[in-house]
């Protein structure tokens, strides 16, 4: 299987073959490496790569998106099936300006600053969440119109819960 793994905008082609249980032949770019992997426990892997030992903490944080923690550094890496990605690129699918704003954390909705139909600029505060004695402002990433607002003041939200939807100006102008 071949994948395209993207970290901070840089794409790496990674081809993987399992030679025996837990042993992988991995080609990343031009480099060929052999990986001996043990699942030490759920989402924690012990990797031996050329006898170098790494403990790697892997969390799925979205579709095809993994948060990797190695020796104090986090890496958010997107991994897509090479074929699927090529097909998607050909179809030009998935590229829309619509922004689904999701809660970055569990907490309470303290204030809802905009309502449906409001026009917002990029950086405008949409919602203020509150958790653990701290307030956190949720800002609009783009200029546009609030076309959906599901956050309700004084109610709880979980991490990843939808809060509101912003349509970019061009789209709504159509």
């Amino acid at each position, binding site marked *: 299987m071949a994948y395209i793994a993207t*970290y901070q905008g840089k794409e790496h082609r990674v081809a993987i073959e399992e030679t025996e249980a837990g042993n992988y032949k*991995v080609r990343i770019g031009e480099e060929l490496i052999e990986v001996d992997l043990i699942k030490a*426990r*759920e989402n924690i892997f012990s990797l031996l790569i050329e006898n170098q030992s*790494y403990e790697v903490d892997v969390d799925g944080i979205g579709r095809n998106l993994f948060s*990797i923690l190695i020796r104090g550094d986090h890496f958010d890496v997107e991994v897509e*099936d090479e074929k699927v990605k090529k097909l998607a690129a050909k179809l030009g699918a998935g590229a829309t300006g619509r922004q689904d704003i999701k809660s970055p954390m569990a907490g309470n909705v303290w204030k809802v600053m905009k309502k449906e139909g409001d026009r917002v600029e990029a950086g405008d505060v949409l919602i203020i969440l509150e958790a653990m004695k701290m307030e956190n402002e949720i800002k609009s990433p783009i200029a546009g119109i609030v076309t959906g607002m599901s956050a309700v003041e004084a109610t709880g939200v979980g991490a990843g819960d939808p809060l509101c939807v912003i349509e970019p100006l061009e789209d709504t102008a159509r």
Partner: protein
Amino acid sequence: MFKKILIANRGEIAVRVIRACRELGIGTVAVYSEADRSALHVRVADEAWCIGPPPAGESYLRMDKILEVARKTEAEGIHPGYGFLAENAEFAERCAQEGITFIGPNPRAIRLMGNKTTSRAAVAEMDVPLVPGMKENLIDEEHAQKWAEEIGFPLMLKAAAGGGGKGMRKIDDPRELLNAFRAARSEALKSFGDDAVYMERYIENPRHVEIQVLGDRHGNIIHVGERECSIQRRHQKVLEESPSPIVDEEMRRRMGEAAIAAARSVDYDSAGTVEFIVSGKTRDFFFLEMNTRLQVEHPVTEMVTGIDLCQEMIRIAAGERLSIEQKDVVIRGHAIECRVYAEDPDNNFLPTPGRIVGLRIPGGPGVRDESGMYEGFEVPIHYDPMISKLVVWGKDRESAIQRCRRALSEYIVKGIKTTIPFHARVMLNEHFIRGEFDTTFIDTEFRVEDAAREKPFEKIAVVAAAINAFRIDQQKAKAAMAGGETRAMNPWKMSGRTRALNNQ
């Protein structure tokens, strides 16, 4: 000695006090809010009583409910931990009225030290050095201009009722003065319900160094060394150590004497902490405030002195004399505490409440875990995000840093992001290693250096992510195959079903 103590707190400090009680053979009564039924302090106490809904105002701050549980359980003492009711003189008084021992200092000490103006006045009488500035509050604009001339620029404008860095502003230029005075006043009123402000000299390269004191109810007061607390993020301590890299034996003696004098000014009779601001340039030190409780960072002092401050505080409250004299206090080695917060250090320290689904606590020599969490624990959204503290000891500062680095590398918390990686990076920072920092360090220099750091394991991360995707795809394929053998052949539907099962 007490037979039974009620612990009016939650989280790691409640667990800390329960452990001290257990080691002293004292029974323990935990109280908990409805959000905390599954908290560790409830599980490890002998008894546990629910005192109300999740908001602290309806549970952990409810003096009446807590005193009611104390009466019912016949607890002889109440330990308030830190935060909540720990520095509430009224609560200490109400305990006394009920014939229950408040495990802390006398109410007058709490009250006097709880206000910047009265505390400064009290310690000034004992010749404890104060930051050159005013002993009273500012009356009006003219008053402000007169004092500004006397103190000189840059100067600090502070709210009398403030604390934790709130209501403070630095003024560099005479032209900023009047606007700043007006703004500070209105801010102070809004934040603290009190518009009193005052001015003092701005200390360059300010470091925060505090002295731990112990006083008993027989008039004995000693100090047990200092803690360096300059590593702060947004004026909140995140890492503390003892001894301080800038304090030598002579300075420790002088600061210790000043701290004892400050404590004596209010007849201090418990464990307490006298905070000083120290100029990183001149090493002059000035009294800031006194915290009339057990501090979050008390373990670093325990590890270098061998004194159990929490047990000692309980003994004192029971009327015992201090078990050590000043000359018996010997500092051995160096200790560092890292506060572990449920916050994402790579995303602006956003809170990350949630369930701890995996946990590996570091072990080995010189490592101490002070934790209120456990695997399976749901970190509640209602309280402070500090979930544990990692404390290490080494024979000197260098050993302690290396050990801390090693311990952090073993620490795994799954399910939520924490500040563990942040601490790991602090331990590698050259300024930190050399002991060259002040209270602004983390928010300025470190932030820049940290953002520019190398990430040597990027390739390994990419490979690990790709293998993980590969394993998930293989599992899906396998599950689809297995389903296909015995059921109708719709691989798409099957793979959806499998995913649902796997997610259970």
